[in-house]
């Protein structure tokens, strides 16, 4: 059984990788298996974790679960064209509830705290200390403040990017692009790491070529 599972995993891995050469029947077969399997897996996982695990087990203790179940049933009314419009209610509930939760989270963590962290003395490490920061720290502080401010200017939609405002916005997009380049480099590392994992499986676990 172990031999079969190893060869199957290797067959499917190589099938997906064969797409790099060109689209072929091997890739199509692997893709179809993956799509079908994943759809089935998610159906089963959602049934046991959501419907059974949350609703069925907890329904006697937490009566509000019936409200959620009812809204879920309303979603299914979409299948009946004449009363399909009712499914917009639970959809609105989901959108509204998530927006409400995220409003405070994002506002607090991604706006207020970031503005607070950006307010800093540029040339000092503490108040009243004078110009005591190291050159590297000063450059770092300037980059953070400059980058944050010009980035915000770029995303200001109420004013045309002309004149001094336009130049600031242009600097902002340069900062953003440099950031994206650094992020891209990090992501290349991530993709390579995943490929290394697969190669370790193919050459190590499957073919026993590496220690």
């Amino acid at each position, binding site marked *: 059984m172990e031999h079969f599972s190893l060869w199957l995993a290797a067959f499917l891995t190589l099938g997906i990788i064969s797409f790099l050469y060109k689209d072929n029947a091997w890739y199509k077969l692997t893709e179809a298996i993956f799509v079908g399997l994943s759809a089935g897996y998610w159906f089963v996982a959602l049934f046991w974790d959501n419907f059974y695990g949350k609703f069925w087990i907890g329904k006697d203790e937490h009566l509000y679960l019936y409200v959620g179940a009812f809204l879920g049933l309303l979603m299914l009314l979409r299948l009946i064209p004449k009363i399909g419009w009712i499914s917009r209610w639970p959809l609105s509930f989901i959108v509204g509830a998530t927006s409400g939760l995220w409003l405070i989270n994002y506002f607090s963590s991604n706006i207020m705290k970031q503005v607070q962290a950006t307010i800093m003395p540029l040339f000092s490490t503490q108040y009243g200390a004078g110009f005591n920061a190291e050159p590297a720290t000063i450059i770092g502080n300037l980059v*953070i403040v400059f980058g944050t401010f010009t980035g915000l200017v770029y995303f200001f939609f109420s004013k045309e990017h002309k004149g001094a405002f336009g130049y600031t916005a242009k600097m902002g997009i340069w900062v953003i692009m440099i950031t994206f380049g650094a992020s891209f480099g990090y992501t290349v590392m991530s993709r390579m790491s995943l490929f290394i994992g697969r*190669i370790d499986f193919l050459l190590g676990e499957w073919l026993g070529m590496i220690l």
Partner: protein
Amino acid sequence: MSTKAKEILTLALIVVFCLVFYIRKVSGGEGIIFSPLVSWLVIAAMIISLLWVLVLTIKGRLISRRVVFVYVGIALALPLFMPFSQKIPISPEVQALYDSVKTLKPGSKVLISFDYDPPSAPELQPMAESFIRLCFERDLKVIIMGLWPQGPQQANMALEKVLSDDKMKAKNLKYGEDYVNLGFQTGNEFVIQRMGTSFESMFPTDYRGTSYDSLPLVRNVKNFSNIEYSFNLSAGFPGSVEWVQIAVDRYGVQLGLGNTAVQAPQMYTYLNAGQVTGILGGMNGGAEFESLCHYKGKATKYMLSQSFSHMIVIAFIIIGNVAYFLSGRKSALKKK
């Protein structure tokens, strides 16, 4: 020979190659390690071939993208056969995370959230193993949970690996007293929010179906205020961002992060704002953490391949830009 025939022949050769090595493995054959001389010859061959590609590009003969794929594959695979290792300097954010764990007293409870699945395992699994190992070495109690369905399974694999170590076996760690796996709970960020009030409401039983109350480690753990430290391993949503926004900013949890390299850049804003104690970013972060823990895991093993692949990418960026600028000059000359 036609293209079809070439393809069939290549496929046949690959199948024969795989069969030969598989039979060799099953017969007890060991892994292959190049000698230093062979390794250097291979590196020299790669450099020369890249220079040849650059010459071809300058001459206007562009190579196919499949050649680039082959180079990347070779750059990732061949270092796994080489006897070299790579020096791993430690980043401040990794050191900060390690130091924050070191300040925890023996007996402190550490919550580890496994928010990833097998596709992200090459990056995050080594971090998970070394972090759990560090916790056990420092006599910290580990509480595991997951916001992704496969997270707790990844946790069990990490636990199995760590506990199979002789040093860990000698500690005689007991499930339910020294570590516990509460399993997966659906609900994304709402789970974290509810955990701020009551862990038991989200995890009435553990991964094995044992009731929360009957587990000695967690029976007195009501919510985040009973946890000394949290560590989140994240590959996307729900993950680190939600943990920072809710667990840290609302409930004051001390949080360290282990992220895939895709997600890591986004987390540095939270590190800069002091919302997290440290970040392990990608396989590199995992390797640095293994180095601090004095443990050679998979992240350290893979770093040489990582570095080689990056050099190949840099080489092709240079080659691509040479091609781009030369083609720009050509069209400018043609216009004249």
